[in-house]
């Protein structure tokens, strides 16, 4: 084949351009650290990348949800803990009152303390995490016990629905302790509700005031039941809290392995890419140096 000067120049330029293209591609990979920066880099893998990224975003959300759920349950647990010790105190007072050696005025004093504790229980029933009333089921914007309620409860503005957090693919976990179970709420069917918990306290207070020993002993039994109820709910909450912790840990692991998989697919193998860059650079240099020697001389340089 007859080779002309133009062919040499054109082919040299073309080779330089293709080496430049390769260098640009590799440069991009090195600078971003990623092998797939556009869908056309690998149309098959890009589908996986998008799916993994979407899963990762969901997992991060679930992890954040699980964290918030734990905080929510910790606060609830704190309140239940308070209630337990307050109930222990009520029990002590009841035992003290059941002891026949008290004078009537002593019993009235004990009743007063019980009333104080009852009021405090009402405050706890309206506990909030942030703006949320934690014992009112899904009616979290309303205090379950309306203001100015007497010690005998007649109205409970909550429901028994679970307040749920999403912590996995179509997995929602109830994070609330149902106020209706905690305070033994029953609907009287006439628009009023009553609470076995507060009824017990009221019964105790009035029997102390009336120095009715039989009633006091009966109340003691009921208070034991209430303590058992609270402890039972605490155990349940603890179990849920544990589960949430497990979910959170699992999510951590899943996020980590998902990130690793994503990196396996998307990220460039640095060592390999750098080697490749070196080799392309060598080609480029060789082309330049050969080019400079090939293009310059022709017969023109030798005919005087």
């Amino acid at each position, binding site marked *: 084949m007859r080779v*002309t000067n133009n062919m040499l120049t054109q082919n040299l330029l073309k080779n330089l351009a293709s080496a430049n293209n390769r260098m640009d591609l590799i440069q991009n990979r090195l600078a971003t650290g990623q092998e797939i920066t556009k869908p056309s880099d690998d*149309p098959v893998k890009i589908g996986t990348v998008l799916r993994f*990224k979407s899963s990762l975003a969901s997992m991060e959300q679930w992890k954040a949800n699980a964290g918030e759920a734990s905080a929510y349950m910790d606060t609830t647990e704190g309140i239940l803990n308070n209630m337990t010790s307050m109930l222990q105190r009520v029990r002590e007072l009841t035992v003290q009152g059941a002891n026949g050696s008290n004078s009537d005025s002593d019993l009235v004093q004990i009743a007063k303390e019980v009333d104080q504790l009852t009021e405090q229980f009402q405050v706890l029933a309206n506990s909030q995490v942030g703006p949320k009333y934690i014992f009112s089921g899904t009616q979290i914007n309303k205090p379950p016990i309306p203001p100015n309620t007497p010690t005998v409860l007649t109205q409970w503005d909550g429901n028994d629905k679970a307040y749920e957090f999403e912590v996995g693919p179509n997995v929602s976990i109830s994070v609330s302790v149902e106020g209706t179970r905690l305070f033994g709420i029953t609907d009287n069917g006439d628009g009023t509700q009553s609470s076995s918990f507060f009824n017990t306290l009221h019964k105790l207070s009035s029997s102390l005031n009336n120095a009715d020993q039989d009633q006091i002993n009966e109340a003691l039994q009921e208070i034991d039941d209430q303590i058992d109820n609270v402890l039972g709910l605490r155990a349940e909450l603890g179990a849920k809290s544990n589960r949430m912790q497990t979910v959170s840990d699992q999510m951590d692991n899943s996020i980590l392995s998902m990130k690793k998989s994503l990196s396996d697919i998307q990220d460039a193998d640095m060592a390999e890419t750098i080697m490749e860059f070196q080799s392309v650079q060598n080609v480029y240099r060789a082309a330049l140096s050969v080019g400079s020697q090939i293009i310059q001389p022709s017969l023109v340089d030798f005919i005087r």
Partner: protein
Amino acid sequence: MYSTFFGLQIASRALSTQQAALDVTGHNIANANNKGYTRQLPNIQAANPLTFNAAGKPITIGAGSTMDSIIRARDSYVDRQFRWETSKYEYWAGKEQTLNMVEGLLNEPSDYSLSSDLNNFLNSWSELAKNPQNVGARAVLKERALTLVDTLHHIDNQITDMQNDLDANVSVTVSQINTIANQIKELNTQIKRSEAAMDNPNDLKDQRDALVDQLSKLVPVRVVETQDPGFTDRTVGNFKVIIGNESDVDNVLVDDQVVRQLQNPAPTVNGFSRVVWKALDAGDPDPDPNDPDNWVDLGNQMGELQANIEIRDQYLVNFRSQFDTFAEGMATAVNTIHQTGQGLEAEGITGIEFFTLIDDTQPFTAANITVNPLIRENLNRIATGTIPLDTTTDPPTHIQDDDGNDLLEVGDASVALDIASLSQGWEKLQAYLDPGDPMPLDAGSLGDFYGSVISQMGVDIQQAKRMAEGQSVLVNHMNNQRESVSGVSLDEEMANLVRFQKSYSAAARLVTMMDSMLDSLLGMGTTR
């Protein structure tokens, strides 16, 4: 006996022949870097010999040389191959270029793309589900929904812009083809005139070939060169240029000195320019551009013009419809769930839609979707929980709270959670649909559908890229072939220069020699 000065004549012919050859070489050297230039070769022939009678028999004696013609070193087969591959290359390169723009527009995978907007949107439902009464979470959700909708609008706008750009290209290309056709016709006239006078119009032919090369980038082109039947004693060519599908007899752009034009400016049908021939005879009405049968058949995957038309009319239309499908599926899925719920404000028996139409008369598309204005005005109407209904009555009624108002269950986040679960698929959505109802999209989830659109786009770009790369190798190969035949080699020209110069010097020496010979002859008559 023949003339005494015959030798001088031979020398003089030799001088002018070698000088002409030197000029041809000079012309080659001067145009060595001229693209489209074809190297020229002096065709030196022995001059008509002289025959005389000597000793009773005819003797023929050589009369030196003449420059018979100057020919172009050109291979028409290589030209045809070159133009064929060029058309193919330009088709794929044009496609690749536009598809790269589409890829850039979608910006996947990155944090600023539709997929991340969708993830953010669905995740903010999960975030809202944790705090249904939190106005901040509601505002974030609204903004993310607006971002998602804006991105869809943006994509739709960009597709329209791209179509308009391509359309402008098409109409510019049409007028380009007409201009080239006219130029080729002019050159045909000049070349014919020159050939009829037995001249060799090499540089005009180069110009004409360059124009055909230029044409081959736009449309597939085929050249048919035949002998003009009007001339029998000399070579006079008829130059015919066929564009597009060469088997279509109508597709003759230039036939010798007759040029057929495309309708220019290109007629628009449904807003897009069409490539349609003008009537062949000036008096006839032009073919109707509204009839697709009249559109010029541009062949199969050849030329930039066809790439532009195909992407404008097919690829982008199809691409847009996938985003329309996506927008509709997303709106349907979210609305189906959203309508069953209420937020911080009681709704009626059914709630409101989350996504609404901009133009009520049209279905949901990427352009025709927005966040319900009621929600934009009042964040409390973003539904998070179910509407508490008393289903014992017919029709069902909204349950009342103690104060006689419609009951709110602010902590119920089931609706928000179910919308958030759309990121996983249709599992939760199924409960809202009647059994047997189709899912909103023919894919595992919203993200899966979009992912398949992106994958398909990636495949298309990769195909265009590979084809363009492969074609460019072929074009380069053909270019080398052509350069090998027609290109100027400076080495060769320098060698010729020396060759012709030496011949010229020798011819000059011949003159000197003849001069001294004549001197001797004339000296015979002088007296000393």
